[in-house]
């Protein structure tokens, strides 16, 4: 059924939630039909926890030693690494299963595809609270953002980050450079900040307490975002879960989406997302 030879299936990778590697692989197998279409031809960055989330993990941009020949890779110069990197590209179930077997718990993907690596096909708004602001404030800002995007005739899609925030995505035609998409996202953030004191659109250090920051910086060459349905390296094995906008309301509990609770979910709120290639025609102001 798979080319992957499983190893250490009974190893516990989430000690608090008591989740084994077999369960992690099973999670990705179950989510695969909804994930693979989005992952297709997108270079990936892995966060691996071979000894479990309570032990040290590591980022892996370059393909791991022993990557089988049937795994697709994408060779690209990485500015941060200062050398050529062979990114993993996950185009099939076997690759996804192989990554899970490597204890690559968190899967991160680029916002552009290998054939047009300089031209993203996704805008992302990373909405994060700064305490004492929490998920309720994030929901408020996310709904403001959705309304704003609706006004720009842009259909948006939302998922939990798997941690404290939400990610809002807009699929677009792969025609704009990253500096254009980044500026567009930044502009919308600035606009919302001008309308509400709750919203922060700029990086500040320290962050202003009680605000919700709309991070635009992921819209950059080589940057990645956590994949939909990816596990996170949290003690509870939370999942970055795509939601229907109707679920984004007061009382939303992102921490409720965990490996065990999403196992039975079958809804696919992002269905057909990437086919909806939108143009950034309307100006923000």
């Amino acid at each position, binding site marked *: *059924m*798979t*080319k992957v*030879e*499983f190893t250490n*299936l*009974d190893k516990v990778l989430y000690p608090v939630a008591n989740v*084994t590697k*077999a369960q992690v*692989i*099973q999670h990705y*197998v*179950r989510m*695969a*039909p909804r994930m*693979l*279409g989005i992952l297709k031809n997108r270079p990936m960055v892995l966060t691996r926890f071979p000894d479990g989330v309570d032990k040290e993990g590591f980022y892996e941009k370059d393909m791991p030693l022993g990557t089988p020949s049937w795994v697709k890779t994408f060779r690209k110069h990485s500015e941060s690494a200062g050398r050529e990197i062979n990114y993993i590209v996950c185009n099939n*179930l076997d690759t996804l*299963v192989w990554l899970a077997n490597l204890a690559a718990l968190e899967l991160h993907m680029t916002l552009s595809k290998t054939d047009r690596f300089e031209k993203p096909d996704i805008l992302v708004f990373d909405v994060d609270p700064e305490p004492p602001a929490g998920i309720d404030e994030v929901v408020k800002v996310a709904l403001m953002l959705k309304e704003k995007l609706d006004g720009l005739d842009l259909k948006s899609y939302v998922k939990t980050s798997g941690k404290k925030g939400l990610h809002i995505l807009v699929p677009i035609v792969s025609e704009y450079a990253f500096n254009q998409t980044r500026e567009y996202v930044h502009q919308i953030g600035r606009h919302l900040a001008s309308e509400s004191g709750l919203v922060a659109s700029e990086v500040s250090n320290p962050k202003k307490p009680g605000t919700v920051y709309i991070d635009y910086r992921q819209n950059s060459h080589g940057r990645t975002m956590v994949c939909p349905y990816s596990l996170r390296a949290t003690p509870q094995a939370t999942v970055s879960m795509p939601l229907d906008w109707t679920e984004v309301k007061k009382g939303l509990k992102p921490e409720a989406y965990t490996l065990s609770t999403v196992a039975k979910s079958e809804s696919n709120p992002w269905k057909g997302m990437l086919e909806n290639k939108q143009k950034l025609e309307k100006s923000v102001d």
Partner: protein
Amino acid sequence: MEEEESMEETNARIPKRPFWSGAVTIGLVNVPVKLYSMTFDKAFSFRFLHKQDGQPLKYQKVCVKDNAVVPWEDTVRGYEVSKNRFIVFQKEELDAARPQSSQKIRIDKFVDYLSIDPIYFERSYALAPDKSNEAYSLLLTSLQKTHKAGAGRITLRTKEYPILLHAYKGAMVLTTLRYAYEISDPSNLEELKGLKEPEKKELDLAVKIINDLSGEFDINEYEDTYEERIRKLIAKKLKGETIVAEKPVKEEAKELMAALQETLNQLKKQ
């Protein structure tokens, strides 16, 4: 394909050529016969190949002292009398001691076939008439009629064997026997010393179970499953398919496998 079909047959095929011909001699009577191999070890045998280029490997005799490859003509036989101490034999010496192949199957007497313990049976060969059908038919029919077997000896290659000549499925069959010294007496096993008599009640029950499970023996009820799997693998490989080693699924992987199957089905529909 002819080769593949032959593998489907329940019985092994008789080879095309006899490997021995001579005569059964009973006193002054001669029955000319040919011998065909009849039993086969069907276990698949594989050649060793060089992993890198797939080429067949050959065996060479290598001297343990200097690792030099030793050609056939530079070898002699040694009998190990004690650890690493040998008596050396020249080829001629061994040849001189060999039994003469007389091309004869000498029958000394006739015995009740069923009285012979199968523990002695080694290999069976089919006998076919050579030129004279009448003599063969006469001997075969008289063996069938009397349910007897001829006991005697044959020299095959360099070894003399005790043999039985008996009727089997409309043919005469020669079965070579092991010598008495080739079979050990199991009652000498230490574990069997001082075996206790079973209780009558237990014995009655055991006998009842045996009687309940009694039936006709049919060898076709037994299948060589390993042979069958290898045969399928070979047929698959011949079609150019690659073989993926499938290890038995561990308990913790069973649910995982079920999920995999479900996802594969879903992906097919997409």
